């Protein structure tokens, strides 16, 4: 095991653990904090994989913006606390489904990529920018329209009044 792998495994275990706690926590605010941990660990793995720009974006957008948004809405909706308040009646079947998916994916991955190795090569941020503006301009423009639509639509729905 290389040092990179060791770091990755540590990040992965923490991230997964936090994820599991997120879906089992009995307090919504705790769950949100677990989400922060989990997402940060994912960001960390990007760093290990030498995708720095994606890692920064991950931390900025997810940890910085999305989680805050989620926390705000938790406050707004006065989230209750306790297992019965947070979980529904289908935990058993849900766990089965999740395990089934995990088993299936694990089998597929093992089958297809058993011997694949990543040799992380630092990606210069500039290259990402070039790629976006050279190869993916059109999706980029479309995403801007999407964000505008989401923004305006969300405001319209969330505001209290009617016209």
């Amino acid at each position, binding site marked *: 095991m290389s040092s990179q792998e060791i770091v990755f495994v540590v990040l992965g275990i923490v991230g997964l653990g936090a994820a599991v706690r997120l879906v089992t926590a009995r307090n919504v605010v705790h769950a949100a904090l677990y989400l922060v941990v989990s997402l940060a660990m994912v960001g960390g793995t990007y760093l290990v994989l030498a995708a720095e720009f994606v890692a920064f974006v991950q931390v900025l957008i997810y940890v910085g913006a999305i989680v805050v948004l989620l926390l705000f809405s938790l406050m707004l909706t006065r989230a209750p606390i306790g297992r019965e308040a947070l979980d*529904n009646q*289908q935990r058993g*079947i849900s766990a089965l*489904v999740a395990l*089934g*998916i995990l088993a*299936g994916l694990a089998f597929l991955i093992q089958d297809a990529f058993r011997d694949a190795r990543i040799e992380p090569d630092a990606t210069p941020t500039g290259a990402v920018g070039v790629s976006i503006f050279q190869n993916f301009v059109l999706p980029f423009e479309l995403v801007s329209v999407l964000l505008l639509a989401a923004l305006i639509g969300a405001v319209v729905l969330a505001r209290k009044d009617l016209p």
Partner: protein
Amino acid sequence: MVAAAETAVNGEAGTTALAWIVTVLPLVSFFLIVLFGKRLPGGGAWIGIVAVGAGLVMSLVVLSHFIGGGEATELSEDWFRVGDLRFELGQYVDGLTAVMLVVVTTVSLCVQVYSLGYMRGDARFTWFYAVISLFTGSMLNVVIANNLLQLLVGWELMGVCSYLLIGHWWEEKENSDSAIKAFITTRIGDVPFLFGIFVLIVATGTANIPEITGAIGGGAISRGLLTAGALLLFGGAIGKSAQFPLHVWLPDAMAGPTPVSALIHAATMVAAGVYLVGRMFSVFVNADPWVLTFVAAIGATTMLIAALLAMIQDDIKRVLAYSTVSQLAYMVAGLSLGPAGYTAGLFHLFTHAFFKALLFLGSGSVIHAVHSNNMSEMGGLRRPMPVTFWTFLIGSAALSGIPPLAGFWSKDEIISTAFHEQHYIVWGIALVTAVITAFYMARAVLLTFFGEYRGHGHPHESPATITGPLVVLAGLSVVVGFLNATAFDVTLFSEWVHFGEGEHLPFNYGFAAISVVGALAGIAVGYRLYARWRERDPLRRLGPAYTLLERKYFLDDVYLRGVVRPIQYRASAAVNWSNRFILDGIVHTFAWTARQFSRLVEVVDRRVVDRGVNTAAGLTGFTGGILRYIQSGNVQRYAVFLFVGVILLAIGISIRA
């Protein structure tokens, strides 16, 4: 191959080139009546009459082409193309076409003249004539179409017209209900029919009927496809020709004006189904043999159950309606006998058209006079209405198979062919049905025209516009049978309409005697029971069997839940049908000794019916339950189903791979 003779298409059209005009005339008259009818004297009715009269003359000219043994001819124009598929507008005229042209125009002409008197003063008189014209034109289009697409257009238009005509007096809810019932029921048959056409088009790459027949004759198509095609086509025939289990619409179609009933029952609509089987006969003959057996089973079942139902009706039109169902089943059974029965079945279609039109118009004349459909309010009409009486009597005798009237020849031919082809079950049922037919017609005649008048007012003979067509049709009912009077070696009809070599059976006096004796026995029983009017129908002594008939084998109830209400009942209805099919066989063969069986029937009835109803209820609960379970309103349960579906699909595919 058997089909080879059919596909010989002669290039010389000769007089048959007129045939398409016969079709176009009523269509033109439809438009003329719709556009100008209201402004014309007589509501435009004469346009329709002139058009169809001219059509009749031309049809006779076309028929003359075949008297000398003319060959089939074809004319066509391209309609449109889709890819390699070419669809045409065209005509294919052979003996069968020519005969049908004559039948349709004759009956339509009689009906239209008759309606001058019958529909006088109707609020939608002009509209009525327009639709009758369109109806006639559609049927003619079905008859001459040289390709399935064109045939389908006529077929569908006919459905629409029948819907409009049955619901002509739509102000009464019952009538509009009947119209929609007819429409939906035939539609259920039409969908398989549609796909049957698809199958044939796909299998042969053409919609052209002679080409399809040729391709089948050439053995170009797999038997499996043919079997599928034949079954699907027959589905259409079952719906249109009111065969079991889709026969329920026809008796209700009585809601329309009587001339419409005559038209529907004699020459159009129901005839189209039988005609279709005849036209596409090579598909049936070359399909798996069990297809014809299936056709025979449907025919035999239908003829018996419908005849039994006709026995107990009080409404005179309903007697005739069930009789039509039963007689159509004769034709279907005739066709199911293979090439040998082909001529016999279609000959019955031909003769039946005349006497059934006669009977309907006659009943209309009676109804016109007494203002009731119920035979319990008639009686003794032979004196005030002599013309109606005699013509009706001739029609009844023809239907009962009394020689030398038309029905005798055609019916006898089917019965003896069945025996000759060793279809003994069909033969037996056909004989029994013949007896029952004679019985119920005797009953109808006795209740209507003999004894004392039981209705209101003073009935008078109808005007000449009504009796005129009756006399003409009565005359035809007497003579048309001689077109194929094998006893005298006249085989004109089988020279026109035959499949393959067209060999015909020699006349067998033994069989003829059996069927005549059977008919006379039926009449005798009828006379015994109904010579004197009784308040209580003597058949009521049958007890539960009578109830079963009265409730139409509970089929309508089944349909109400099974078809007319949600579809999921249908499975249980199917169970019911099959159960009752067996049950009916037992009950009705021994109907005259029903007392002994009544207990059995009661037990079976209770068990079968109760169980059927319970099953139906259970099924609704079941599907309703499924719906409630899967569409629970809980989005997370949806998500679970989504993932479970994904996983199951993935497992299924990986097992297969």
